[in-house]
């Protein structure tokens, strides 16, 4: 919980705002956090069920037998 609060406060306090008019580069498709979300769903599933780890995506280990 402390770590979580630390990260939130750090994010809130340490950055100056970038105005909308200066976000031309950030609006590009290649600058999206995930530019291909549907493809990522399957990729996340493969990783979640073929590896011992989860997290950082939607797949959390449920919904599939995946032998």
């Amino acid at each position, binding site marked *: 919980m402390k770590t979580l609060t630390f990260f939130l406060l750090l994010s809130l306090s340490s950055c100056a705002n970038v105005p909308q008019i200066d976000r031309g580069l950030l609006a590009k498709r290649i*600058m999206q956090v995930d530019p291909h979300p*549907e493809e990522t769903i399957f990729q996340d599933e493969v990783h979640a069920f073929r*590896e011992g780890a989860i*997290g950082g995506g939607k797949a*959390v280990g449920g*919904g599939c037998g995946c032998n």
Partner: protein
Amino acid sequence: MVGKLLEVVVDAIKLQRLIFSILLILTSIQSAFAEMMEKGKTRVKTLLNAYSQKSTSGKQVLDNSGIEDVLVFEPQIFVKHQITEDTEINASFVLDTWTAESDTILDGNTGASGEGKTGQARFASTLGARKEIDKASYGMNLGFSSEYDYTSKNISFDFERSFAEDNFTVGLGLQYYADTVNLFQDITPATSAHISEGFNRDIYAINLSASQILTRKDLIVLGTTYANSKGRLESTAGTVNIAGTREVEVLPGERKRNAFSAKWVHSLSENTALNLGHRYYFDDWGLKSNSIRGAYLISLRDDLDFLEFALRYHSQGSVDYYKDRFSSTERYMTSDSDLSKFHSYEPTVLYSRHLGEYKAYDIIDVEDVEWTNSLSYSKRNTGLHSIYLQTGISFFF
């Protein structure tokens, strides 16, 4: 018994506090949020996933052949429709068909080292809605999935809110899976193997993320996931070798999983960008892992198309209960190769091409057609390797 009860109560109190703290933070934020589609618009994406895995190093395989070959075809359809200016409904449908060596070995369909069992299928669907209220976004999804050894009913809630002129966004996701799993039993000799009916497996997860625009060229995202799985957590066909005799694997009835992730998106130039991510994971079965993914993206034709080259590296230790082979029966035992120590490399190339409008026969009139193709290859140091291909078409009408 009392100790266990206290542990559960303490966990519940901790979770309650965590949720309360998060809600407190979220409700104190003023924000603006991501745009939705125009009212009446519909977006459809069809995606075909094909996955092929080859391996002869699976220590969990009943006949000691180690064969873990899998072949999956998974068509998916995603539909999103904007019903009002601030409300969207969405649905997805998945139909998997696959062939898996591990399934053949226990059910005796074709034999341990023969062709995998064919004709298996999984159907899954989700139905959801997302609404923006006062610049925040609320979403809910219901899901269902069914296959011969598994049934899942799940529900998820998502909340996202941005503030400081959209420079900072926080997201909260809650997921709950009420799953039922069938497990093979009495596997020695293999001819006596039968599949049991309906063991419960409940999974709940909480995801928290925060993204921040750092500069005109930089964006970071921090995230954390906690997932708790309870019930029968063994694999359907997982076995262990105990001094030459095969028995089914035995795993604890609970697993608490934690992950912390960070992502940095950086613009290198007008048409190129880097997308770098790291995830650290640990759980109470003793497994720890690090996953690093780096992608180089190139924007083409005035941002209509893009090309991505990515490399993912994953390294994990084994769970405490893993051994290739057991000399005597232990309380918990697994030889599941996915829970063993290994590292893997996975290069991916993805190309997305905008095709524009498409009209045909006076009845088809769609716009912003986009064709995306992706190819990934993964290789573990244990010998397991896989390749998967994804091809998708999306359009609006």
